[in-house]
């Protein structure tokens, strides 16, 4: 009895000390929370400031965010001005100066990602509420998420050097699973993830698989989206560009005439003409935008409105990065197939 009590006490003590010594990571979004949790494993405790289905660009700098950042060992934001309206106010209000951009405890996870739609030439708000560094919704491309996982692992390794190998191993395991979800575990085992990604990024995945006699081996997200390559969609806001680009689906236009500007009748009319010409079959939209404009265009074009989660936590089934991408891929694939 005494032995059992001591064992329980020891387990309890170990659990409490592990929780106490876990690095406290605060992320701006739930996508980052999920990636950071995979990379940090049991060595970290991760909290996301933004929760639920909401636009990370339009968030108030809530004082409760400041309380969370005050004790953060690492603050992770997407960057590319996604959180420009509130990130700095939260960090400054927290008094945690090392979590300021450029500080030892701050990370923009999008560093090194493929960033689409970087404006060229003169940039002004006459172009709408644009992001001067490019489209910040980089997590919608699984390739970019590999980069983000590595960024997080390296930052954690710099903060907690004695566990650096563990963070890097966790990031590798995360990327391994990501590759398998993307291409199928059997194909990854046969060909190797690096080669598959190289083919994919060069736009030669199908050609190379056919040449290697592996046409039927593609599985995962890439296989589900494969029949849809070359399809055309409309979106509400320019949020899905990285996802559509990865799976070679054409973005015909947005319901917003310019980023951040609500749909206008004139713009929707011209969009209807483009949609008919391009054979648009679905209108992709985040759950937090009104659906009237999408329904109006859809009825005039003969397309479907598909509400999809923009990130982790935007749908009850989207609990982590993998389940979220499953929901997104399955919903888009089902809509385009139907």
């Amino acid at each position: 009895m005494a032995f059992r009590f001591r064992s329980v006490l020891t387990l309890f003590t170990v659990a409490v000390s592990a929780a106490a010594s876990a690095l406290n990571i605060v992320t701006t979004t739930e996508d980052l929370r999920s990636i950071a949790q995979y990379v940090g494993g049991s060595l970290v405790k991760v909290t996301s400031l933004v929760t639920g289905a909401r636009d990370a660009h339009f968030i108030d700098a809530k004082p409760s965010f400041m309380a969370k950042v005050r004790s953060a060992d690492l603050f992770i934001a997407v960057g590319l001005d996604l959180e420009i309206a509130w990130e700095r106010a939260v960090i400054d209000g927290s008094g945690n100066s090392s979590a300021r951009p450029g500080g030892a405890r701050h990370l923009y996870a999008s560093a090194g990602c493929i960033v689409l739609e970087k404006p060229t030439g003169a940039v002004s708000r006459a172009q709408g509420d644009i992001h001067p560094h490019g489209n910040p919704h980089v997590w919608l491309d699984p390739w970019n998420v590999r980069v983000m996982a590595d960024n997080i692992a390296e930052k954690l390794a710099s903060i907690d050097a004695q566990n650096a190998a563990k963070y890097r191993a966790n990031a590798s395991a995360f990327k391994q699973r990501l590759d398998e979800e993307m291409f199928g575990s059997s194909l990854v085992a046969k060909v190797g993830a690096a080669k598959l990604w190289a083919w994919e990024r060069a736009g030669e995945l199908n050609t190379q698989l056919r040449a290697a006699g592996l046409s039927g081996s593609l599985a995962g997200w890439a296989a589900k989206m494969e029949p849809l390559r070359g399809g055309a969609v409309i979106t509400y806001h320019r949020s899905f560009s990285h996802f559509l680009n990865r799976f070679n689906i054409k973005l015909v236009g947005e319901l917003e005439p310019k980023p951040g500007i609500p749909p206008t009748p004139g713009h929707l009319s011209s969009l209807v003409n483009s949609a008919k010409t391009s054979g648009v079959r679905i209108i992709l939209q985040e759950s937090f935008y009104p659906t009237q404009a999408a329904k109006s265009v859809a009825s005039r074009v003969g397309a479907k409105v598909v509400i999809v989660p923009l990130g982790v936590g935007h749908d009850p089934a989207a609990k982590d990065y993998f389940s979220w991408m499953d929901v997104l891929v399955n919903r888009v694939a089902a809509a385009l197939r139907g």
Partner: protein
Amino acid sequence: MTLHSIGLAHAIASILSAPFGAGSTQDPNPNTFNPQISLVGDFQLRARDSFGAEGEKAIFRELELGLAADADPFLRVEAYIALENEFEEEGDAEGHETKVDVEEAFGRYTNLGGGFTGKAGIIAGAIGRVNRNHRDQLWTLEYPFAVKEIFGEEGLRGPGLSLSYLAPTDRFIEFTVEALQPEEGPLFGESGFRKPVVVGRGRTFFDYTEDLSAQLGATVGTGPSAAGGDATFFGVDYTMKWQPGQKGRFASVEAEAYWYDTDGAGDGMGGFITTTYEVMPRWFLTGQYDFVDIPGADEQLTALSLGLTFRITEFQLWRAEWQRISMDSAEDRTLFTLQFQWLIGAHPAHKY
């Protein structure tokens, strides 16, 4: 090995050797060290005034220039300088003139450690919530009378020092102590380095649900009275916001109340409650009830305002506001004013 596979090998090698995480997400920019600059324009048209005050009916109410940048690794500097006009009132001796007003200009230390932050310079006092907002952040055309008639036309602002402490708790709990030298106002008289206006404030925050949150604060202050002797005040403020993720849905309730006591001019109180509801995307309906015992005047003022705001984007709005002002010593006054406000430059901060 085919030519194609050699090219592919290079592609794979370049992908595998690509540095992950190197550099910044922001491109190098030749203007990197320039401060963030913003300019707010506020144009107002007084369409109706039941007092029939003569003078200009349309004014450029305010042109506010904002500058903000990190001075060095330790200090962030912000400055807000405004050119201001006011509607001319009947009997104004000075006539209509444009004033230059330094609304705020302070350096802020966020690296004091232990949860402490500090500010020095011209600052908006940490009393309530509205006092720290600039005019373009209000749901109404002007600050509530309860703030203007107790603390001054622009609220309690002036040169001073501020020290805040954020408690190391899961719930947000912050304490602030300030020493200010505001312009002489209705409540406080001439203050100085040896006899400043001292303010203490505590505030906390509640996330009731993902969509519903609130801030509760209490403020106490003391300083030299405008009527001689000392003046003290105590205030409470509560702000609740409903902000579901769905675009086009928003509601808020803001209430503040102040009790004051002066050696020379007796005691009194003032307060306001403001409610705002987004009736349809980008259209906001605001109602405000406002009352104050004017310090030293033995008179109470009450005001009721109704406003409709069309926020076209984050960078411009149109507003129509009807206001009825009642005072013990005068007839009721009714105003109807239109406002056009815009912002250029740095992206506006989304303060709570």
